[in-house]
């Protein structure tokens, strides 16, 4: 059985089912409030959710039962008495160390928990980074949306901020350095200095079995890094557009990646009225459209950066993504064919699968 945790503009929806047998909504939580992201921690069995109430501010909650009581995590806040407030949470990510959970948010901040998400602390090195005054928000704010761990090595982290680029750490977040070599932002002048940090990364995924390899969907560009995020090469040729938000990988194959192109930054819908996932099986040398079962024609959907997730790997790879039109689509055969998991949810912000 597969469980999908679907964060939406109007609450968290729990879907359960299996490819081929259909999915059904089994619980809803935080009714009426935006749920940016939720995940189930397999170490504890608990579900963690990042919410951004327009009235009461961003919070992290945890529960054993999504239909029951949720406990608010402590410490998800900026230093009291400062001149900034936490605007929004974007992502939760499990760390490699026992009980380690990360949360990323706006304004470009990282929180870390060592107790499974009960309490968090602000990452001070990133908060006080000397380049921070040069960081500029993208359209969605100064969002820290990607936190990629290194299997078996808790100290090695890669994060991405829109629009402040890629940041790497080899010491568990006590220091951070840029990882932007090779990224080419078309939205900046050609003579922009090399040390510009205003780079709008949309999503990164590290390959768990070949951790030096990371795939990236950029704001106009799809890239691959073979040196753990130090430098990047363009792998977008072959796609109908190099603009999009989410990206998924197949743990069984370091040469595989999946993207969902949108027309362009000025027209953020699926191209040609057809919803299609593109996959590469040769590290980006070529791309193949996968749309069997997905909406077309006249299907102009937007899929956000957290709204594409996988479960399993290889021939058993399951893929799931949700749209801002409230649909969730799934594939039980690595993208070869697709089915509807839900069609009438609120706008989907995120999908996680377990």
């Amino acid at each position, binding site marked *: 059985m597969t469980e999908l945790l679907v964060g939406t503009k109007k609450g968290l929806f729990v879907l359960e089912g299996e490819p081929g047998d259909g999915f059904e909504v089994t619980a809803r939580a935080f009714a009426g409030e935006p749920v940016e992201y939720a995940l189930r921690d397999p170490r504890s069995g608990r579900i963690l959710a990042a919410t951004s109430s*327009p*009235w009461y*501010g961003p919070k992290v909650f945890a529960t054993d039962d999504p239909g029951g009581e949720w406990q608010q995590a402590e410490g998800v806040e900026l230093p009291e008495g400062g001149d900034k407030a936490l605007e929004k949470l974007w992502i939760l990510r499990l760390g490699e160390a026992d009980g380690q959970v990360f949360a990323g948010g706006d304004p470009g901040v990282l929180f870390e928990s060592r107790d499974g998400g009960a309490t968090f602390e602000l990452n001070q090195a990133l908060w006080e980074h000397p380049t921070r005054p040069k960081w500029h928000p993208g359209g969605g704010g100064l969002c820290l949306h990607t936190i990629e761990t290194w299997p078996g090595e808790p100290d090695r982290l890669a994060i991405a901020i829109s629009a402040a680029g890629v940041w790497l750490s080899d010491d568990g977040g006590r220091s951070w350095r840029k990882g932007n070599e090779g990224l080419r932002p078309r939205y900046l002048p050609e003579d922009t200095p090399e040390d510009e940090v205003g780079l709008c990364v949309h999503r990164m995924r590290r390959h768990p079995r070949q951790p030096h390899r990371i795939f990236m969907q950029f704001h106009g560009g799809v890239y691959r890094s073979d040196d753990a995020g130090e430098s990047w090469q363009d792998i977008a040729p072959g796609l109908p557009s190099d603009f999009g938000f989410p990206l998924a990988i197949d743990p069984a194959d370091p040469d595989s990646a999946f993207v969902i192109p949108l027309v362009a930054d000025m027209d953020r819908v699926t191209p040609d009225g057809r919803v299609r996932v593109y996959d590469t099986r040769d590290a980006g040398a070529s791309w193949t459209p996968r749309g069997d079962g997905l909406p077309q024609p006249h299907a102009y959907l937007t899929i956000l950066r957290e709204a594409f997730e996988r479960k399993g790997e290889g021939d058993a790879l399951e893929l799931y993504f949700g749209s801002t039109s409230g649909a969730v689509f799934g594939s039980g055969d690595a993208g070869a064919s697709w089915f509807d998991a839900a069609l009438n949810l609120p706008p989907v912000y995120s999908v996680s699968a377990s």
Partner: protein
Amino acid sequence: MATVCLRQPLKRLAGDQADHDLAGATVGELLAALERAHPAVDGWILDERGVMRRHINVFVNGERAAQETAVAAGDRVDVLPAISGG
């Protein structure tokens, strides 16, 4: 003492109690006193800067008020979510 009046979910966080008699010369002081008395409310009405959240409305004796609005003994201070969303 003025009386701060809460509705859900703030009421639940404040000991499942709607009305709270608190000391303070302004709305902001009353809200800070509420947080001290009920730490679970911390961060829900005032953000880290100590600023009232954008979509929270406060009324003193039925009149729309701001964080700096003065309050007197016996005043009723209603804390309500704003009409917002979409």
